[in-house]
């Protein structure tokens, strides 16, 4: 029997899934965001190269700005490391208990936060030095 999918958005938010559920949601949101901006970037680059359209050039200029890169860096780093955690826990299901899941989340953030902080530091200092 298929599980019922007739669950509203706010009803879904009330589900007490805590950490793993929030990461699942954020993984989906960042994943769709990556598909959107990489897809748009592919189309924009294609039309910039083939037709020289102004709109396409504008899109790529936005993509190359450091303000945009700060957002992209977080989205990509989070999606990559959260996906690594999900994949590893799926391949070793023995670790899929509540204690190990929360340990994995802490481990994940202890990698994401320094990596992202370093990225933002270099992005901001380099771009301030250039301007």
């Amino acid at each position, binding site marked *: 029997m298929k599980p019922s999918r007739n669950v509203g958005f706010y009803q879904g938010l009330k589900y007490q899934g805590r950490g793993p559920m929030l990461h699942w949601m954020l993984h989906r949101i960042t994943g*769709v965001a990556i598909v959107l901006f990489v897809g748009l970037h*592919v189309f924009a680059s294609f039309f910039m190269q083939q037709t020289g359209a102004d709109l396409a050039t504008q899109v790529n200029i936005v993509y190359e700005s*450091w303000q945009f890169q700060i957002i*992209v860096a977080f989205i990509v780093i989070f999606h990559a490391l959260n*996906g*690594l955690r999900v994949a590893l826990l799926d391949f070793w299901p023995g670790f899929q208990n509540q204690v190990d899941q929360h340990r994995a989340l802490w481990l994940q953030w202890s990698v994401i936060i320094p990596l992202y902080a370093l990225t933002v530091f*270099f992005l901001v200092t*380099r771009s301030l030095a250039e301007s």
Partner: protein
Amino acid sequence: MRARSVQPAMSFEYFMWIFTRGSGIALILLALIGISGAFLMGARTQMDLATVMRWTFFPNPNHVVNSNIPDVAIGWATAFWQIMQILIIILATTHGYNGLRVVIEDFMGDTYLRPMLRGLIFLLWLFSLIVAIYVILSS
């Protein structure tokens, strides 16, 4: 808690479930190879971080046309990096568009819209693949 031992029948969804995890891990490794290549070729002193990130995921001379680096094509225009780029493109587009399909199908029932959206995503996937591989092989 002991893990249950279940052997599901091979289906499209099960195959894509495995593919998503495998390609995700492979993409992390390929990105590490790309970033190593960028640093070996002088990224630390020549490029800003945004450029290194673009080179990491798509190390292609056309892609970094605004990087203000004079000898940008040297080092990257080899068969090794072309194979790496094609691998990244095939894995990433398939991973991405399949993820989009999964998310969309989670929010809709089994209506007539489903095969249409699947077809649309398939066309987008095919177009992205062709454009990206054309860019790689023509540069």
